């Protein structure tokens, strides 16, 4: 399994990376950790002529814990998310979710930016970031713009990011003190994508609920959050089951996916409630 040849670029700042992307148009792809792109290249389902590796851009590897928000650079690996104590204090749900992604070696390389930008419905971070109401910073030739996670995903592998833009940072607002949280993933085995996964945040008068791999995009459901905020767990589950649109695949038929979705969501809600201060 040998990928097609390509020119390799390792710029050291975002502006240079954007310039290289602009020069080569759709011949070029951004390389983060490579654990989605390289397997696709080995299968020759992707054959970019230019790879723009972001690993040389130091600023994309940072995590900043602010009073109101946490800012995570796109090249922060899942391993770094798990190891960062400040992040675990501010947003422990990120560690809980990252620990359920793939396996240790893949988490060494796989990045939050790649996980979010790829648009794979199986990826865990998009649903989590919708639950947390995060925003993504996109830098292109015209400068930087921010897009809400809840508006970023259009369909499988299609997002609001333009081909000449790079997702550089994730801005996550800090939840209110005492909020309960949980990320629950049902999967066939370690390393697998979710059969169903649920991200839940809840607190005094608010709740936010999103699910993964149960439609073409992550599903953040406002009605489910509203029901849960009012203490109506069954109403929350019913609203979410209306919102998802799972397809039959090797993880099971539609009825089973819905069953797993409800189970994941109920478990996540119970854990979040138990953690609420």
């Amino acid at each position, binding site marked *: *399994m*040998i*990928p*097609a*040849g*390509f*020119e*390799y670029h*390792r710029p050291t700042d975002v502006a240079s990376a954007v310039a290289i992307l602009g020069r080569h148009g759709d011949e070029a792809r951004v*390389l983060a950790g*490579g*654990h989605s792109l*390289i*397997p696709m*290249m*080995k299968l020759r389902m992707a054959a970019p002529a230019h*790879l723009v*590796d972001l*690993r040389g851009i130091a600023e994309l590897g940072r995590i900043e814990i602010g009073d109101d928000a946490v800012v995570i650079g796109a090249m922060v*690996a899942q*391993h770094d998310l798990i190891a960062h104590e400040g992040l675990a204090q501010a947003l422990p749900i990120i560690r809980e979710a990252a620990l359920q992604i*793939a*396996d*240790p*070696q*893949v988490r*060494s*390389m796989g990045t939050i930016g790649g996980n979010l930008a790829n648009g794979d419905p199986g990826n865990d971070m998009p649903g989590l970031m919708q639950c947390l109401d995060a925003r993504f910073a996109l830098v292109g030739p015209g400068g930087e713009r921010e897009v809400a996670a809840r508006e970023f995903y259009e369909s499988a592998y299609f997002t609001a990011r333009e081909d000449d833009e790079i997702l550089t940072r994730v801005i996550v607002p800090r939840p209110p003190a005492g909020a309960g949280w949980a990320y629950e993933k049902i999967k066939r085995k*370690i*390393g697998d994508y979710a059969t169903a996964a649920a991200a839940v945040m809840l607190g005094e008068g608010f709740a936010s609920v999103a699910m993964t791999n149960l439609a073409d995009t992550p599903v953040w459901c406002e009605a489910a959050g509203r029901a849960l905020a009012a203490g109506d767990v069954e109403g929350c589950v019913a609203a979410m089951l209306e919102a998802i649109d799972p397809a039959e695949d090797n993880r099971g038929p539609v009825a089973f996916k819905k069953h797993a979705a409800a189970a994941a969501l109920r478990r996540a809600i119970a854990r979040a409630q138990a953690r609420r201060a």
Partner: protein
Amino acid sequence: MSKMHVKLKVNGRQVEGLAEPRMLLVHFLREELGITGPHIGCETSHCGACTVDMDGRSVKSCTVFVAQANGAEIVTVEGLTNPDGSLGVIQEKFREHHGLQCGFCTPGMITRAHRLLQENPNPTEEEVRFGIAGNLCRCTGYQNIVKAIMAAAAELNAAKEAAQ
């Protein structure tokens, strides 16, 4: 495609070579450097037989381009022996506890165990199992592999205490 100049530190030794950027790290190690400890198993980043240490992290070298690894420090199973060439503690414990049958997964297992014990010197059995979740063994059922890693942790910790 033009070849690029690649510089790596492998098992403490500085190495240089020319490679196409698309060459995978495992192929560079095996074919260009003759370091055959990292095995090519599934080639799809599932099995972990190709696991090496890259800048202090366990990675699957079948899913890393040599271009990405350029400038990095790599440790393979060959780098985990004692300076006199005898088996290192983890290798010795795999032998003692029979933590292998066919041996194909063993270099990846040992390289992963090495990093796991750096990150968590005193793991529970559950943490060992979670820590080697990216390494598949189709012979042993993992029991003796877990025993070997637990025994290695105990011996490494005892040696550390004795040194203090």
